[in-house]
């Protein structure tokens, strides 16, 4: 239980730090560019996660959904 609680505290600290962060709507020109998105190349991420899913034990973190495979 200790670990999920620490995670929760980290998340809370992260959110509470938000008040001093952020931009006004007219300051979003750079953030609106495709290259500035969290996943600017979805297929690169998809293919990478498929490779590492079949070559390593760890998975997940970036998102959920999308399907499984035997990958042996």
């Amino acid at each position: 239980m200790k670990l999920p609680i620490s995670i929760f505290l980290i998340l809370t600290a992260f959110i509470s730090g938000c008040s001093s962060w952020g931009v006004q709507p007219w300051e979003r020109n750079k953030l609106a560019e495709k290259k500035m998105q969290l996943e600017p190349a979805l297929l690169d991420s998809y293919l990478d996660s498929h490779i590492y899913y079949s070559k390593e034990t760890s998975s997940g973190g970036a998102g959920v959904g999308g399907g499984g495979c035997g990958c042996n």
Partner: protein
Amino acid sequence: MQLKKSKSVRKVLAVATTSLLSGMAHSANSGDNSWEMDSAVLFYSEADRVSVIEPVVSLRKDMGDEHFLNLRFVFDSLTGSSPNGAIKTSSAQTFTTPSGNSTYITAANETPLDSTFHDTRVAVNAEWEKPLNKTTKVTYGANISKEFDYQSLGVSANFSWDFNNRNTTLTAGAAINADTINPVGGVPTGLTAMSASKLTTGSDDTKTVTDLILGVTQVINRTTLMQLNLNIGSDSGYMTDPYKILSVLDGSGNLRATDPYLYEKRPDSRSRQALYWKTVMGFSDDVLNLSYRYYWDDWDVSSHTIEAKYRFSLGDKQYIQPEVRYYLQDKANFYYYNLVDGAIPTYASADYRLADLKTTTLAFKYGIDLDKDSEFAVRIGKMNQTSNGDAPFEDVDATFVQLNYRMVF
């Protein structure tokens, strides 16, 4: 007074920007009947082992009113040899194929590879994105994946909520997959002997994979974005690899005389967690994409993954992007390089992917905008996997080339 004035100017500017953006979105929605297609083909090859060709096509259609349909089609063709889990020995070794109909021989001092390994996979994924109101959105997904010995069916739902002037987004998602495996020659009984007449528990078995994710994305400033996710997963059912075995050595370090190879057996449940942090930072025209993941599960596997991509712009239309990824894994508590006669545990696997492991990947991407609505990119990379502990398994060296093409039609 000054403060009041500045606040009202801000308000007017905010309203003006929002109207402009929504106006643009509306005109795009109403007049745009086009599809966006993103495609890629991956050529992946391991030295002396597996080769994969994997084309992917993804389609996105704006259905109007901020509703989107996303479709993805994947075809996977896999050939080559895969380690069967047995250790190399100073004399040649003979193994039974999974079907039990024939045998294959591995030469002395070579890592035993099952050369009957081949597979093709077809997968389809569909998603429907719809806004619930101005600041919340939900995405429903469904997927099906079929291999000759494996099938996976899944559904997912992801919810997102923008607030704090759209500077903060909270996300919550859930996914469930129901998988069925039909191994060639049946499902071997764990930790029983590899033989032409192996013991089986049936012709197929099942596995359920569930995932929950909670995340927060925060705009830090005009050029920096940050994301933090917590992923909690639970797997239950058949997670053993039915084609993998372990070597059993006698007291003097030689393969034992009777039943020297046993089928592996893994626990039938696993709970996983992953904490994932990512930042995107703009520097003039360049962009740094940096992420870190800490993963841990109740098989005692834990790992650190760090990944960095730096996109250098070459003028308006071209870019180059070096990429590096480093992965460090602590082994599962049932991983054994080999077993010892008289000390057979309840669960055991010699699959190197469960071992103390280090993966290093270096890649390089070049992209060019061919015109306003199309883009081409090529990505070349090398991956190395090596032991990070006592298990002396051989390195895996892979090379991959990926071609990407995106267009609107």
